[in-house]
């Protein structure tokens, strides 16, 4: 008997499809965890090695080295988001998903949830490591820290998705995400404390998402509402712009020889 299951609608069915895509992408991520592992282990090693330098160079050196490298390597993790979307084009699977009952929104949610979780896990592990090993102060407000991690994860995900819809290959994505990550996070004070950077760099830092992410993380750890919420707003706005761009590209025939 042919099944007519096309008329199922409603939030539960939609959630079921989102869960199906998310589960599928979780399996893919789990079977290829190399990128995530390297972006967790590398900053751990660097935090340990660089901590003495930072502690001697600036006040709050432990906070600077832990949050700075967290931000820098979470920016590198944009490549995880970008790659996971770009491979759908390489594998020619995106059209196969688009031809199913699932809407574009459901597909995108299912696709991005596991990446978002991966980004949150990365930041959480690095923060925990910073507290337990590097000497990062225990956050005064867990709520602000959770908010900061979630917002930064969203921004990274949106920027990574937008990048994936622009570049033509994984090589291009690597170049853009690696060079961009290094530039933006360095300019934002993630590698070298802003206070010892030249004046022009301190002025230019404000255009870098890395600057706002670092400010947000450090303010969240200190438990400062104002210092946390302003960067939250700015990063959310950046994420929304990038996310809207990515959604438009992904739902309008991205990956085909001709866009709709």
């Amino acid at each position, binding site marked *: 008997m042919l099944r007519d299951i096309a008329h199922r609608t409603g939030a539960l069915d939609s959630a079921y499809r989102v869960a199906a895509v998310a589960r*599928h992408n979780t399996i893919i991520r789990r079977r290829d965890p190399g990128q995530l592992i390297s972006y967790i282990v590398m900053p751990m090693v660097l935090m340990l090695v660089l901590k003495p330098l930072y502690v001697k160079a600036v006040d709050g050196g432990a906070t600077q080295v832990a949050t700075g490298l967290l931000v820098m390597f979470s920016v590198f993790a944009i490549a995880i988001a970008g790659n996971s979307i770009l491979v759908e084009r390489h594998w020619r699977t995106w059209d*196969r998903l688009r031809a199913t009952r699932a809407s574009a929104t459901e597909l995108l949610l299912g696709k991005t949830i596991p990446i978002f979780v991966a980004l949150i896990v990365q930041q959480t592990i690095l923060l925990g490591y910073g507290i337990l090993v590097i000497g990062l102060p225990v956050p005064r407000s867990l709520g602000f820290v959770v908010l900061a991690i979630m917002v930064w994860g969203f921004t990274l995900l949106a920027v990574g998705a937008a990048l994936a819809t622009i570049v033509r290959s994984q090589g291009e994505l690597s170049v853009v995400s690696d060079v961009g990550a290094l530039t933006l996070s360095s300019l934002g004070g993630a590698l070298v404390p802003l206070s010892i950077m030249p004046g022009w760099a301190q002025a230019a830092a404000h255009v870098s998402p890395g600057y706002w992410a670092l400010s947000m993380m450090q303010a969240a750890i200190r438990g400062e509402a104002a210092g946390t919420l302003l960067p939250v707003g700015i990063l959310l706005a950046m994420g929304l712009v990038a996310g809207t761009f990515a959604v438009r590209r992904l739902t309008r025939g991205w990956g085909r020889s001709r866009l709709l």
Partner: protein
Amino acid sequence: MLEAIDLVKRYGPVQALDGFSLHVEAGEIVGLVGHNGAGKTTFVEIVANLIRPDSGHVTIDGKDPAAARGRIGVAPQHLGLYPSISPREHLELFGRLAGLRRAALRTAIDDLAAALRLTGFMDRHSGGLSGGQQRRIQAATALIHRPGLLLLDEPTAGADLETRQAMLDVVKQRAGEGAAIVYITHYLPELTDLQATIAVARSGGIIARGTHAELVDGLPGEVRLTLGEDEEIRVSTTAPTATLIDLLSRTDRPVSAVDVRNPSLDDLYRSLAGNDAS
């Protein structure tokens, strides 16, 4: 079930579809044939709601393709599989996206795996399977939810004889259950096996449509006579038997071999679409 009327699609200077119309009833298999570039794949992509036509329209059970996606199963020409995911996991994904759950999903997967001979490699990574095996998995993902409209673009490419027959049996079974099927292939004998209505695409439109018998009626077959050891006479004719008798009555040399070939779909294909190769 499927009604496509006067579809036009242009990619820059390339006119992919130019007044392409096709009607497929429930339970009917339409074999869509034509050279590369004839517009077959573009047609499938429009019906599957992956691209929009410049003009013309498609309805599936009276609905726009976007509203009818749950009723369509598509196995495109190009393989689109996840290399690190097993066939079972592919079928779980596409089954769930179509709304199948728990026991119904498991049953559908087991049935399809048996019917398409997938059981021996259901839990291996798809990236390590042969091209023919991957193509069967792709077809299975289109079939898993028993859609009312099936679009199968060369589903048996690279398959051996046994698995090709298994695929054809499943397609016939689905048509018997009432599915409308568009079956694209370059293996024309498959369409005879499927008892499909044949539509010939050329230059972005359908130039002929009918049953095998209707389409080959009036086409020339061939009579081949070998005289002695090395002389061969070939005659293209619409009346092979009469021509053979005539040839035999007029020769006084010993005949070492006779071959009579009735007109086939290959002849039709060549005669209708022969000038459109790309």
